[in-house]
Protein backbone atom coordinates (compact mmCIF):
# COMPACT_ATOMS: atom_id res chain seq x y z
CA UNK A 1 0.00 0.00 0.00
CA UNK A 2 1.10 3.54 -0.70
CA UNK A 3 2.71 4.85 2.52
CA UNK A 4 0.65 8.04 2.46
CA UNK A 5 -2.56 6.07 2.14
CA UNK A 6 -1.69 4.16 5.27
CA UNK A 7 -0.96 7.37 7.19
CA UNK A 8 -4.21 9.05 6.21
CA UNK A 9 -6.19 5.91 6.97
CA UNK A 10 -7.71 5.67 3.50
CA UNK A 11 -9.05 2.36 2.27
CA UNK A 12 -7.88 0.60 -0.83
CA UNK A 13 -9.60 -0.66 -3.96
CA UNK A 14 -8.91 -3.83 -5.94
CA UNK A 15 -8.31 -3.56 -9.66
CA UNK A 16 -7.50 -6.02 -12.45
CA UNK A 17 -4.18 -5.04 -13.95
CA UNK A 18 -2.69 -6.22 -17.23
CA UNK A 19 0.64 -5.44 -18.81
CA UNK A 20 2.99 -7.02 -21.34
CA UNK A 21 6.50 -7.27 -22.77
CA UNK A 22 9.33 -6.20 -20.51
CA UNK A 23 6.94 -4.52 -18.02
CA UNK A 24 5.84 -7.97 -16.80
CA UNK A 25 8.93 -8.04 -14.60
CA UNK A 26 7.43 -5.20 -12.55
CA UNK A 27 4.46 -7.32 -11.51
CA UNK A 28 4.47 -8.58 -7.90
CA UNK A 29 6.66 -11.67 -7.35
CA UNK A 30 4.84 -14.93 -7.98
CA UNK A 31 2.45 -13.46 -10.58
CA UNK A 32 1.45 -15.98 -13.25
CA UNK A 33 1.15 -14.56 -16.76
CA UNK A 34 0.64 -10.87 -17.39
CA UNK A 35 -2.56 -10.17 -15.44
CA UNK A 36 -2.84 -9.64 -11.70
CA UNK A 37 -5.25 -8.34 -9.10
CA UNK A 38 -3.75 -5.27 -7.46
CA UNK A 39 -4.69 -3.42 -4.34
CA UNK A 40 -4.24 0.31 -4.76
CA UNK A 41 -5.05 3.20 -2.40
CA UNK A 42 -8.42 4.83 -2.89
CA UNK A 43 -7.98 7.83 -5.15
CA UNK A 44 -5.09 6.23 -7.04
CA UNK A 45 -4.62 7.04 -10.74
CA UNK A 46 -2.94 4.99 -13.50
CA UNK A 47 0.20 7.05 -12.86
CA UNK A 48 0.13 6.03 -9.17
CA UNK A 49 -0.08 2.37 -10.20
CA UNK A 50 3.02 2.80 -12.40
CA UNK A 51 4.84 4.30 -9.40
CA UNK A 52 3.58 1.60 -7.05
CA UNK A 53 5.02 -1.05 -9.40
CA UNK A 54 8.23 0.95 -9.92
CA UNK A 55 7.61 1.12 -13.66
CA UNK A 56 9.46 3.83 -15.56
CA UNK A 57 6.73 6.48 -15.81
CA UNK A 58 7.42 7.41 -19.41
CA UNK A 59 4.77 8.57 -21.80
CA UNK A 60 5.39 5.81 -24.28
CA UNK A 61 2.81 3.32 -22.99
CA UNK A 62 -0.65 2.55 -24.20
CA UNK A 63 -2.92 2.97 -21.19
CA UNK A 64 -6.54 1.80 -21.21
CA UNK A 65 -9.13 1.65 -18.47
CA UNK A 66 -12.15 -0.63 -18.92
CA UNK A 67 -11.55 -0.65 -22.65
CA UNK A 68 -11.17 3.11 -23.01
CA UNK A 69 -7.95 4.87 -23.96
CA UNK A 70 -6.51 7.07 -21.21
CA UNK A 71 -4.58 9.83 -23.00
CA UNK A 72 -1.35 11.14 -21.47
CA UNK A 73 -2.92 14.24 -19.91
CA UNK A 74 -5.48 12.07 -18.06
CA UNK A 75 -3.11 9.46 -16.62
CA UNK A 76 -2.48 11.37 -13.41
CA UNK A 77 -6.13 12.40 -13.04
CA UNK A 78 -8.41 9.44 -13.73
CA UNK A 79 -9.30 7.87 -10.39
CA UNK A 80 -9.47 4.06 -10.26
CA UNK A 81 -12.53 2.33 -8.84
CA UNK A 82 -13.14 -1.17 -7.44
CA UNK A 83 -12.98 -3.88 -10.16
CA UNK A 84 -11.60 -1.52 -12.81
CA UNK A 85 -9.62 -3.16 -15.60
CA UNK A 86 -6.41 -1.21 -16.15
CA UNK A 87 -3.96 -2.16 -18.92
CA UNK A 88 -0.56 -0.53 -19.37
CA UNK A 89 1.18 -1.84 -22.48
CA UNK A 90 4.78 -1.04 -23.39
CA UNK A 91 5.92 -0.41 -26.97
CA UNK A 92 5.78 -3.46 -29.21
CA UNK A 93 8.01 -4.75 -31.98
CA UNK A 94 6.91 -3.78 -35.44
CA UNK A 95 7.93 -5.52 -38.63
Amino acid at each position, binding site marked *: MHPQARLSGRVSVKIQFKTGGSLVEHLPPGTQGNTVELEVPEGATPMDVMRQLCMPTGENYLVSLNGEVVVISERGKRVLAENDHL*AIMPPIQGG
Partner: protein
Amino acid sequence: MKHVIIGAGPAGIIAAETLRRADPRSTVTVVGDEPEPPYSRMAIPYLLTGSIGDAGTHLRRGADHFAKLAVDIRRDRATGVDVGDRRVALAGGGHLDYDRLLIASGSHAVRPPIAGMDLQGVENCWTLADARRVAAGARAGARVVLMGAGFIGCIVLEALAKRGVELTVIEMGERMLPRMMDDVGGEMIKRWCESKGVRVLTGARVGAVSAADGGLELALDSGESLRAELVVCATGVSPNVDFLADTAVRIEDGVLVDEYLCSSVADVYAAGDVAQGPDFSTGERRVHAIQPTASEHGRIAALNMAGGRTRFRGSLSMNVLNTLGLVSSSFGLWMGAEGGETARAADAERFRYLRLEFQADRLVGALALGLTQHVGVIRGLIQTRVRLGQWKPQLLRDPLLVMDAYLDCTRRRA
Protein backbone atom coordinates in the same frame (compact mmCIF):
# COMPACT_ATOMS: atom_id res chain seq x y z
CA MET B 1 -22.54 3.15 -49.12
CA LYS B 2 -19.82 5.49 -47.80
CA HIS B 3 -16.63 3.78 -46.66
CA VAL B 4 -14.04 5.79 -44.75
CA ILE B 5 -10.59 4.38 -44.00
CA ILE B 6 -8.33 6.05 -41.45
CA GLY B 7 -4.73 5.27 -42.43
CA ALA B 8 -2.95 4.94 -45.78
CA GLY B 9 -0.51 2.13 -44.97
CA PRO B 10 -0.73 -1.41 -46.38
CA ALA B 11 -3.85 -2.31 -44.34
CA GLY B 12 -5.74 0.83 -45.44
CA ILE B 13 -4.71 0.65 -49.10
CA ILE B 14 -5.47 -3.06 -49.52
CA ALA B 15 -8.82 -2.45 -47.83
CA ALA B 16 -9.59 0.43 -50.23
CA GLU B 17 -8.79 -1.66 -53.30
CA THR B 18 -10.74 -4.64 -51.97
CA LEU B 19 -13.75 -2.42 -51.25
CA ARG B 20 -13.63 -1.02 -54.77
CA ARG B 21 -13.91 -4.55 -56.18
CA ALA B 22 -16.37 -5.95 -53.62
CA ASP B 23 -18.64 -2.90 -53.44
CA PRO B 24 -18.20 -1.14 -56.81
CA ARG B 25 -20.83 1.54 -56.34
CA SER B 26 -19.63 2.74 -52.94
CA THR B 27 -17.51 5.79 -52.22
CA VAL B 28 -14.13 5.03 -50.67
CA THR B 29 -12.13 7.72 -48.87
CA VAL B 30 -8.73 7.13 -47.28
CA VAL B 31 -7.30 9.63 -44.78
CA GLY B 32 -3.53 9.62 -44.30
CA ASP B 33 -1.44 12.18 -42.45
CA GLU B 34 1.96 11.72 -44.11
CA PRO B 35 3.03 13.99 -46.98
CA GLU B 36 3.82 11.07 -49.31
CA PRO B 37 1.86 8.82 -51.62
CA PRO B 38 0.93 5.61 -49.74
CA TYR B 39 4.15 3.72 -49.07
CA SER B 40 5.58 0.67 -47.33
CA ARG B 41 7.77 1.11 -44.27
CA MET B 42 9.31 -2.28 -45.05
CA ALA B 43 11.07 -0.63 -48.01
CA ILE B 44 12.86 1.96 -45.88
CA PRO B 45 16.03 -0.13 -45.39
CA TYR B 46 16.43 -0.33 -49.19
CA LEU B 47 16.03 3.44 -49.38
CA LEU B 48 18.75 3.84 -46.73
CA THR B 49 21.18 1.65 -48.65
CA GLY B 50 20.41 3.52 -51.87
CA SER B 51 19.04 0.42 -53.66
CA ILE B 52 15.81 2.30 -54.36
CA GLY B 53 14.64 5.91 -54.45
CA ASP B 54 11.51 7.38 -52.82
CA ALA B 55 9.30 6.00 -55.60
CA GLY B 56 10.52 2.48 -54.84
CA THR B 57 8.83 2.64 -51.44
CA HIS B 58 5.42 3.53 -52.87
CA LEU B 59 2.80 0.82 -52.49
CA ARG B 60 1.37 1.46 -55.96
CA ARG B 61 2.90 2.79 -59.16
CA GLY B 62 1.46 5.60 -61.25
CA ALA B 63 0.25 8.98 -60.02
CA ASP B 64 -3.30 8.24 -61.19
CA HIS B 65 -3.60 4.72 -59.71
CA PHE B 66 -6.04 5.73 -56.99
CA ALA B 67 -7.91 8.26 -59.16
CA LYS B 68 -8.57 5.50 -61.72
CA LEU B 69 -10.01 3.35 -58.95
CA ALA B 70 -12.09 6.30 -57.70
CA VAL B 71 -10.43 5.98 -54.31
CA ASP B 72 -10.15 9.42 -52.73
CA ILE B 73 -6.86 9.76 -50.80
CA ARG B 74 -6.90 12.78 -48.49
CA ARG B 75 -4.01 14.20 -46.55
CA ASP B 76 -5.46 14.93 -43.14
CA ARG B 77 -5.53 13.40 -39.69
CA ALA B 78 -8.49 11.99 -37.76
CA THR B 79 -8.87 13.73 -34.40
CA GLY B 80 -12.04 12.05 -33.19
CA VAL B 81 -14.90 9.76 -34.13
CA ASP B 82 -18.55 10.20 -33.27
CA VAL B 83 -19.84 6.65 -33.58
CA GLY B 84 -23.44 7.80 -32.95
CA ASP B 85 -23.53 10.32 -35.80
CA ARG B 86 -21.04 8.20 -37.81
CA ARG B 87 -18.68 11.08 -38.39
CA VAL B 88 -14.89 11.40 -38.33
CA ALA B 89 -13.49 14.77 -37.24
CA LEU B 90 -10.35 15.90 -39.08
CA ALA B 91 -7.41 18.03 -37.94
CA GLY B 92 -7.89 20.25 -41.00
CA GLY B 93 -11.23 21.37 -39.57
CA GLY B 94 -13.49 19.29 -41.80
CA HIS B 95 -15.22 16.00 -41.20
CA LEU B 96 -16.18 12.84 -43.08
CA ASP B 97 -19.49 11.01 -42.70
CA TYR B 98 -19.40 7.23 -43.03
CA ASP B 99 -21.64 4.21 -43.18
CA ARG B 100 -18.73 1.85 -42.45
CA LEU B 101 -15.43 2.90 -40.92
CA LEU B 102 -12.06 1.15 -40.97
CA ILE B 103 -9.48 2.13 -38.36
CA ALA B 104 -6.10 1.38 -39.93
CA SER B 105 -4.21 4.19 -38.24
CA GLY B 106 -1.12 2.08 -37.60
CA SER B 107 1.43 2.75 -34.92
CA HIS B 108 4.01 5.38 -34.09
CA ALA B 109 7.61 5.06 -32.97
CA VAL B 110 8.20 5.76 -29.30
CA ARG B 111 11.34 6.79 -27.49
CA PRO B 112 12.35 5.64 -24.03
CA PRO B 113 11.98 8.15 -21.18
CA ILE B 114 15.62 9.25 -21.15
CA ALA B 115 16.93 12.81 -20.81
CA GLY B 116 18.15 14.23 -24.10
CA MET B 117 16.13 12.02 -26.44
CA ASP B 118 14.66 15.22 -27.91
CA LEU B 119 18.05 16.60 -28.96
CA GLN B 120 18.94 17.27 -32.56
CA GLY B 121 20.70 14.23 -33.99
CA VAL B 122 18.39 11.74 -32.24
CA GLU B 123 16.10 10.20 -34.84
CA ASN B 124 13.52 7.46 -35.16
CA CYS B 125 13.57 5.29 -38.25
CA TRP B 126 9.86 4.68 -38.81
CA THR B 127 8.54 7.09 -41.45
CA LEU B 128 10.00 8.16 -44.80
CA ALA B 129 10.69 11.59 -43.28
CA ASP B 130 12.67 9.86 -40.48
CA ALA B 131 14.58 7.81 -43.05
CA ARG B 132 15.66 10.94 -44.94
CA ARG B 133 17.05 12.47 -41.74
CA VAL B 134 18.83 9.22 -40.84
CA ALA B 135 20.32 9.05 -44.34
CA ALA B 136 21.56 12.65 -44.03
CA GLY B 137 23.31 11.88 -40.72
CA ALA B 138 24.62 8.39 -41.48
CA ARG B 139 27.52 9.35 -43.72
CA ALA B 140 30.40 6.92 -44.19
CA GLY B 141 32.68 7.08 -41.16
CA ALA B 142 30.12 8.85 -38.93
CA ARG B 143 29.76 7.48 -35.41
CA VAL B 144 26.23 6.14 -35.07
CA VAL B 145 24.55 4.61 -32.04
CA LEU B 146 21.50 2.44 -32.64
CA MET B 147 19.24 2.07 -29.63
CA GLY B 148 17.20 -1.11 -29.76
CA ALA B 149 18.09 -4.46 -31.37
CA GLY B 150 14.57 -5.74 -31.96
CA PHE B 151 13.24 -6.62 -35.39
CA ILE B 152 13.15 -3.04 -36.71
CA GLY B 153 16.46 -2.26 -35.01
CA CYS B 154 18.16 -5.19 -36.73
CA ILE B 155 16.76 -4.18 -40.13
CA VAL B 156 18.04 -0.65 -39.65
CA LEU B 157 21.34 -2.08 -38.35
CA GLU B 158 21.97 -3.79 -41.67
CA ALA B 159 21.21 -0.61 -43.64
CA LEU B 160 23.41 1.54 -41.40
CA ALA B 161 26.32 -0.91 -41.58
CA LYS B 162 26.08 -0.93 -45.37
CA ARG B 163 26.41 2.87 -45.36
CA GLY B 164 29.84 2.42 -43.81
CA VAL B 165 29.19 4.10 -40.47
CA GLU B 166 31.03 3.27 -37.25
CA LEU B 167 28.15 1.49 -35.56
CA THR B 168 27.38 0.66 -31.93
CA VAL B 169 24.14 -1.12 -31.04
CA ILE B 170 22.68 -0.83 -27.55
CA GLU B 171 19.99 -3.26 -26.44
CA MET B 172 18.36 -3.10 -23.03
CA GLY B 173 17.42 -6.79 -23.11
CA GLU B 174 19.91 -9.52 -22.25
CA ARG B 175 20.21 -10.53 -25.92
CA MET B 176 19.60 -9.22 -29.41
CA LEU B 177 16.03 -9.72 -30.67
CA PRO B 178 14.69 -10.46 -27.17
CA ARG B 179 11.14 -10.85 -28.49
CA MET B 180 11.95 -13.02 -31.50
CA MET B 181 14.99 -15.14 -30.52
CA ASP B 182 15.97 -17.26 -27.54
CA ASP B 183 19.36 -16.89 -25.84
CA VAL B 184 21.10 -19.35 -28.19
CA GLY B 185 19.95 -17.57 -31.35
CA GLY B 186 20.39 -14.08 -29.87
CA GLU B 187 23.98 -14.88 -28.93
CA MET B 188 24.78 -16.22 -32.42
CA ILE B 189 23.41 -13.08 -34.07
CA LYS B 190 25.42 -10.93 -31.68
CA ARG B 191 28.66 -12.79 -32.49
CA TRP B 192 27.83 -12.57 -36.20
CA CYS B 193 27.36 -8.78 -36.01
CA GLU B 194 30.57 -8.39 -34.02
CA SER B 195 32.45 -10.41 -36.64
CA LYS B 196 31.23 -7.87 -39.20
CA GLY B 197 32.67 -4.95 -37.23
CA VAL B 198 29.54 -3.81 -35.37
CA ARG B 199 29.89 -3.22 -31.64
CA VAL B 200 26.96 -4.79 -29.77
CA LEU B 201 26.12 -4.01 -26.14
CA THR B 202 23.33 -6.15 -24.67
CA GLY B 203 21.88 -5.76 -21.20
CA ALA B 204 22.93 -2.11 -21.53
CA ARG B 205 20.97 1.04 -20.76
CA VAL B 206 21.49 4.61 -21.81
CA GLY B 207 21.13 6.88 -18.77
CA ALA B 208 21.18 10.20 -20.60
CA VAL B 209 21.99 11.82 -23.92
CA SER B 210 23.61 15.26 -24.02
CA ALA B 211 25.06 17.63 -26.60
CA ALA B 212 28.86 17.60 -26.81
CA ASP B 213 31.33 19.14 -29.30
CA GLY B 214 28.74 19.57 -32.02
CA GLY B 215 27.67 15.93 -31.58
CA LEU B 216 26.04 13.80 -28.91
CA GLU B 217 27.32 12.04 -25.83
CA LEU B 218 25.55 9.00 -24.39
CA ALA B 219 26.11 8.12 -20.75
CA LEU B 220 25.52 4.41 -20.17
CA ASP B 221 24.45 2.97 -16.82
CA SER B 222 27.66 0.91 -16.90
CA GLY B 223 29.64 4.14 -16.54
CA GLU B 224 30.91 4.11 -20.12
CA SER B 225 30.26 7.13 -22.29
CA LEU B 226 29.92 7.07 -26.07
CA ARG B 227 30.22 9.85 -28.64
CA ALA B 228 28.07 9.89 -31.74
CA GLU B 229 27.04 12.19 -34.56
CA LEU B 230 23.73 10.34 -34.90
CA VAL B 231 21.55 8.32 -32.53
CA VAL B 232 18.89 6.15 -34.15
CA CYS B 233 16.11 5.09 -31.84
CA ALA B 234 14.35 1.80 -32.67
CA THR B 235 12.88 0.99 -29.27
CA GLY B 236 9.39 -0.01 -30.36
CA VAL B 237 6.06 1.25 -31.61
CA SER B 238 2.66 1.90 -30.07
CA PRO B 239 -0.78 1.82 -31.75
CA ASN B 240 -2.36 5.13 -32.79
CA VAL B 241 -5.56 5.10 -30.75
CA ASP B 242 -5.68 8.43 -28.90
CA PHE B 243 -8.33 9.82 -31.28
CA LEU B 244 -10.67 7.06 -30.08
CA ALA B 245 -10.46 8.19 -26.44
CA ASP B 246 -14.07 9.36 -26.10
CA THR B 247 -15.72 6.58 -28.07
CA ALA B 248 -17.28 3.23 -27.18
CA VAL B 249 -14.67 1.47 -29.35
CA ARG B 250 -13.00 -0.93 -26.91
CA ILE B 251 -9.25 -0.69 -26.56
CA GLU B 252 -6.79 -2.90 -24.73
CA ASP B 253 -3.43 -3.48 -26.46
CA GLY B 254 -5.02 -2.00 -29.57
CA VAL B 255 -8.54 -1.82 -31.01
CA LEU B 256 -10.17 -5.11 -29.98
CA VAL B 257 -11.71 -6.85 -33.01
CA ASP B 258 -13.60 -10.10 -33.50
CA GLU B 259 -12.96 -12.76 -36.15
CA TYR B 260 -14.64 -10.50 -38.71
CA LEU B 261 -12.28 -7.63 -37.83
CA CYS B 262 -15.23 -5.69 -36.40
CA SER B 263 -14.67 -3.64 -33.25
CA SER B 264 -17.01 -3.46 -30.25
CA VAL B 265 -19.05 -0.89 -32.21
CA ALA B 266 -21.14 -2.01 -35.19
CA ASP B 267 -19.84 -0.85 -38.58
CA VAL B 268 -16.47 0.17 -37.12
CA TYR B 269 -13.68 -2.20 -38.18
CA ALA B 270 -9.94 -2.20 -37.49
CA ALA B 271 -6.94 -3.63 -39.33
CA GLY B 272 -3.15 -3.74 -39.16
CA ASP B 273 -0.83 -2.51 -36.41
CA VAL B 274 -3.66 -0.82 -34.53
CA ALA B 275 -5.89 -3.91 -34.36
CA GLN B 276 -5.83 -6.47 -31.56
CA GLY B 277 -7.20 -9.44 -33.45
CA PRO B 278 -7.29 -13.24 -33.26
CA ASP B 279 -3.91 -14.96 -32.95
CA PHE B 280 -3.57 -18.17 -34.98
CA SER B 281 -1.60 -20.02 -32.30
CA THR B 282 -3.54 -19.19 -29.15
CA GLY B 283 -6.94 -17.92 -30.28
CA GLU B 284 -6.36 -14.96 -27.96
CA ARG B 285 -6.44 -11.44 -29.27
CA ARG B 286 -3.03 -9.91 -29.91
CA VAL B 287 -1.48 -6.99 -31.74
CA HIS B 288 0.83 -8.33 -34.46
CA ALA B 289 2.45 -5.24 -35.90
CA ILE B 290 3.75 -6.99 -39.00
CA GLN B 291 3.01 -6.35 -42.65
CA PRO B 292 1.58 -9.79 -43.58
CA THR B 293 -1.01 -9.37 -40.83
CA ALA B 294 -1.80 -5.83 -41.99
CA SER B 295 -2.45 -7.02 -45.56
CA GLU B 296 -4.66 -9.92 -44.47
CA HIS B 297 -6.58 -7.78 -41.97
CA GLY B 298 -7.16 -5.08 -44.60
CA ARG B 299 -8.51 -7.53 -47.15
CA ILE B 300 -10.84 -9.37 -44.80
CA ALA B 301 -12.12 -6.25 -43.03
CA ALA B 302 -12.99 -4.78 -46.44
CA LEU B 303 -14.87 -7.91 -47.56
CA ASN B 304 -16.97 -7.69 -44.41
CA MET B 305 -17.49 -3.92 -44.73
CA ALA B 306 -18.83 -4.65 -48.23
CA GLY B 307 -21.50 -6.88 -46.70
CA GLY B 308 -19.68 -10.21 -46.76
CA ARG B 309 -19.16 -12.58 -43.87
CA THR B 310 -15.55 -13.70 -44.15
CA ARG B 311 -13.88 -15.10 -41.06
CA PHE B 312 -10.29 -14.34 -40.22
CA ARG B 313 -8.51 -17.53 -39.15
CA GLY B 314 -6.01 -15.64 -37.00
CA SER B 315 -2.59 -14.22 -37.73
CA LEU B 316 0.58 -16.23 -37.20
CA SER B 317 3.21 -14.28 -35.31
CA MET B 318 6.10 -14.51 -37.72
CA ASN B 319 9.28 -12.62 -38.53
CA VAL B 320 11.97 -13.27 -41.10
CA LEU B 321 15.03 -11.09 -40.81
CA ASN B 322 18.31 -10.70 -42.65
CA THR B 323 21.03 -9.28 -40.40
CA LEU B 324 24.20 -8.60 -42.42
CA GLY B 325 23.57 -11.78 -44.41
CA LEU B 326 22.51 -14.02 -41.51
CA VAL B 327 18.85 -14.94 -41.93
CA SER B 328 16.82 -15.58 -38.80
CA SER B 329 13.16 -16.40 -38.48
CA SER B 330 10.63 -16.97 -35.72
CA PHE B 331 7.18 -18.53 -35.90
CA GLY B 332 4.20 -18.89 -33.59
CA LEU B 333 4.87 -20.27 -30.11
CA TRP B 334 8.65 -20.40 -30.49
CA MET B 335 9.14 -19.92 -26.77
CA GLY B 336 7.25 -23.16 -26.15
CA ALA B 337 3.70 -24.28 -25.54
CA GLU B 338 2.29 -25.49 -22.25
CA GLY B 339 2.82 -29.22 -21.92
CA GLY B 340 4.72 -29.21 -25.21
CA GLU B 341 8.11 -30.58 -26.23
CA THR B 342 11.21 -28.95 -27.68
CA ALA B 343 13.82 -30.10 -30.20
CA ARG B 344 17.03 -28.17 -30.76
CA ALA B 345 19.98 -28.43 -33.13
CA ALA B 346 22.75 -25.84 -32.94
CA ASP B 347 26.02 -25.40 -34.79
CA ALA B 348 27.60 -22.27 -33.31
CA GLU B 349 30.67 -22.39 -35.59
CA ARG B 350 28.57 -22.26 -38.73
CA PHE B 351 25.91 -19.95 -37.29
CA ARG B 352 23.11 -22.46 -37.68
CA TYR B 353 20.33 -23.11 -35.25
CA LEU B 354 16.94 -24.76 -35.40
CA ARG B 355 14.45 -25.02 -32.56
CA LEU B 356 11.10 -26.72 -33.00
CA GLU B 357 8.20 -26.58 -30.55
CA PHE B 358 5.54 -29.28 -30.53
CA GLN B 359 2.18 -29.65 -28.88
CA ALA B 360 0.93 -33.26 -29.06
CA ASP B 361 2.09 -34.27 -32.55
CA ARG B 362 1.78 -30.88 -34.20
CA LEU B 363 4.40 -28.21 -34.81
CA VAL B 364 3.28 -24.98 -33.09
CA GLY B 365 6.40 -22.81 -33.14
CA ALA B 366 9.97 -22.60 -34.39
CA LEU B 367 13.16 -20.58 -34.56
CA ALA B 368 15.61 -20.89 -37.42
CA LEU B 369 18.97 -19.25 -37.96
CA GLY B 370 21.10 -19.60 -41.08
CA LEU B 371 18.60 -22.08 -42.56
CA THR B 372 16.68 -20.17 -45.22
CA GLN B 373 15.42 -23.24 -47.08
CA HIS B 374 13.35 -24.33 -44.06
CA VAL B 375 11.27 -21.15 -43.71
CA GLY B 376 8.43 -22.11 -46.06
CA VAL B 377 8.28 -25.67 -44.75
CA ILE B 378 8.05 -24.62 -41.10
CA ARG B 379 5.37 -22.06 -41.83
CA GLY B 380 3.43 -24.63 -43.84
CA LEU B 381 3.55 -27.26 -41.09
CA ILE B 382 2.35 -24.77 -38.46
CA GLN B 383 -0.40 -23.16 -40.53
CA THR B 384 -1.87 -26.40 -41.86
CA ARG B 385 -1.73 -27.99 -38.35
CA VAL B 386 -0.50 -31.20 -39.95
CA ARG B 387 -0.37 -34.18 -37.59
CA LEU B 388 3.22 -35.39 -37.62
CA GLY B 389 2.47 -38.88 -36.30
CA GLN B 390 5.56 -41.10 -36.53
CA TRP B 391 7.64 -38.14 -37.63
CA LYS B 392 7.47 -36.44 -34.26
CA PRO B 393 9.88 -38.77 -32.39
CA GLN B 394 12.27 -38.53 -35.33
CA LEU B 395 12.12 -34.72 -35.29
CA LEU B 396 12.73 -34.68 -31.55
CA ARG B 397 15.97 -36.55 -32.25
CA ASP B 398 16.93 -34.60 -35.37
CA PRO B 399 14.93 -31.42 -36.05
CA LEU B 400 16.80 -30.90 -39.33
CA LEU B 401 14.63 -33.67 -40.81
CA VAL B 402 11.77 -31.16 -40.88
CA MET B 403 11.94 -30.89 -44.67
CA ASP B 404 11.52 -34.66 -45.11
CA ALA B 405 8.69 -34.67 -42.58
CA TYR B 406 6.90 -31.92 -44.47
CA LEU B 407 7.19 -33.61 -47.85
CA ASP B 408 6.02 -36.93 -46.46
CA CYS B 409 3.11 -35.53 -44.40
CA THR B 410 1.80 -33.24 -47.14
CA ARG B 411 2.06 -35.99 -49.77
CA ARG B 412 -0.08 -38.19 -47.59
CA ARG B 413 -2.68 -35.48 -47.09
CA ALA B 414 -2.89 -34.76 -50.82
